[in-house]
């Protein structure tokens, strides 16, 4: 590790000025959702901390998370790879393949035992480990083996964090999340399908610059800096929600006016992410701004949330059939109950003895 140069030295070697370093630190600080006054601390950390080894494991996934992270603009994955970390294994990004690739992983583990960082994307099938293997090693075995010497694990994407789409009902592969398997290592979940690129890189950067302790996580293991508030809280369409103005269709006047998409199934109110502020594609837009409700992809089981186009307040079950059964059942019970009542009354009428005024006293 000692032979890995520090970032400012690297930059210097590449002819990048100190101003460039300042710009980088300012941007990184902003990306980590830290207050601007911490920029000097970020700079200090980058100036003094060696770049750790990172092993990236891709399991049952679609490579969307990797695709996304390569599009991160601040810090870019290149920044990370060249400036902040030493990415020693990532089978999509690395040049080596086959035995050489696996050898690189083993070598990195050996060299950095107890200190390296494991990044995982994709869920792990435990229904049958044979569903997903790399170089003949099942995902489960590779995760357990690699995690053993890790300092910490970052589960990137909803699949690794919570099981994601493979875990969706009926979950044919028995897909589970990293935290369902590894329980003795610190795990940071960076969910999203995919996660916002700069959230991934920022979490990595923060982890590497300020350490694990600097990252406060919620009950679902997500960094609070990026998953502390719901999308709804920060949505620019929120004022329309508060005014009670809702788009009723994707092409109606409300949609054109930019009204709230709640009724079109937006899951913003129960989805924690910084989509509305950090946005996507280099801060250009995010789904709601593009006119589509939030799917809730940073939440566990978002695929099973009752339908992407069903408002949160709308029941997700089979109530229509049950409702009809209830109508029939209720009416039948009512008729039966009423009939018993009528019978009771008729019995009383039959038992009625016609009295006259002299029968109205208790005679002993």
């Amino acid at each position, binding site marked *: 590790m000692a032979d890995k140069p520090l970032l400012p030295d690297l930059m210097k070697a590449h002819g990048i000025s*100190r101003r460039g370093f300042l710009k980088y630190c300012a941007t990184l600080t*902003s990306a980590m959702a830290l207050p601007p006054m911490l920029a000097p601390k970020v700079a200090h950390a980058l100036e003094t901390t060696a770049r750790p080894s990172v092993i990236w494991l891709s399991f049952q996934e679609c490579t969307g998370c990797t695709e996304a992270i390569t599009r991160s603009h601040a810090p870019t994955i290149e920044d990370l790879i060249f400036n902040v970390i030493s990415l020693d294994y990532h089978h999509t990004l690395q040049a080596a393949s086959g035995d050489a690739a696996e050898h690189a992983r083993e070598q990195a583990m050996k060299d950095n035992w107890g200190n390296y960082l494991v990044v995982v994307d994709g869920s792990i099938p435990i229904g049958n480990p044979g569903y997903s293997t790399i170089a003949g090693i099942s995902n489960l075995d590779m995760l357990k083996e690699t995690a053993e010497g890790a300092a910490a694990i970052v589960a990137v994407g909803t699949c690794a964090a919570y099981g994601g789409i493979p875990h969706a009902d009926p979950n044919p592969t028995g897909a589970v999340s990293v935290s369902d398997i590894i329980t003795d290592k610190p795990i940071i979940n960076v969910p999203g399908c995919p996660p916002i690129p700069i959230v991934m890189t920022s979490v990595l950067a923060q982890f590497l610059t300020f350490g694990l302790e600097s990252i406060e996580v919620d009950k679902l293991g997500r960094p609070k800096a990026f998953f502390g508030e719901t999308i709804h809280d*920060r949505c620019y369409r929120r004022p329309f929600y508060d005014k009670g103005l809702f788009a009723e269709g994707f092409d109606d006047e409300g949609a054109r006016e930019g009204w709230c998409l709640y009724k079109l199934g937006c899951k913003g109110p129960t989805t924690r992410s910084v989509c509305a502020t950090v946005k996507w594609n280099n801060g250009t837009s995010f789904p709601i701004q593009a006119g589509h409700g939030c799917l809730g992809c940073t939440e566990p089981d978002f695929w099973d949330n009752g339908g992407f186009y069903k408002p949160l307040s709308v029941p997700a079950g089979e109530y229509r059939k049950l409702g009809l059964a209830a109508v029939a059942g209720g009416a039948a019970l009512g008729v039966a109950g009423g009939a018993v009542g009528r019978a009771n009354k008729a019995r009383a009428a039959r038992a009625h003895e016609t009295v006259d005024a002299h029968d109205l006293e208790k005679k002993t």
Partner: protein
Amino acid sequence: MSTNSDNLHGREAVDLLKSHISTGNARPVLQEIHAALEALLATGTTSTIDLGAIPFGPGDERLLDEVLGKGELSATLDVLGTSHVEETGIPGVWRIDHFDQNGETLSRFVEVTFLPEILKTQRADAEAGLARLAIRLEEHDSRTH
């Protein structure tokens, strides 16, 4: 809508419409800038506001631009992509926008200061410059001999 929107059509009309969508966050940010400028004048404290940390709608951007306005000074930095540093129409209030090599926005700040740090020559760069100057002089001298 203002009356001049009557002859707008299609995208233009939609853009105009959107430019009014606001989160209401610009007003408090302006208030913060006001307080920061007061602090700068009173105690010399500089402040930085990260515009990436606040949800802004198109209407908020408009309001910020309208209120702060254009100033006397603007500079372009060419490092790791470009950066624009501009004094706004309110002296002491600066806008700093960082872009990457592809021209995409990296980060955006409002700085309340007499001179943004990034405009100053950094000591390390000056040291490198000194070395570079010495080399260049040496080269020049050796050529003229």
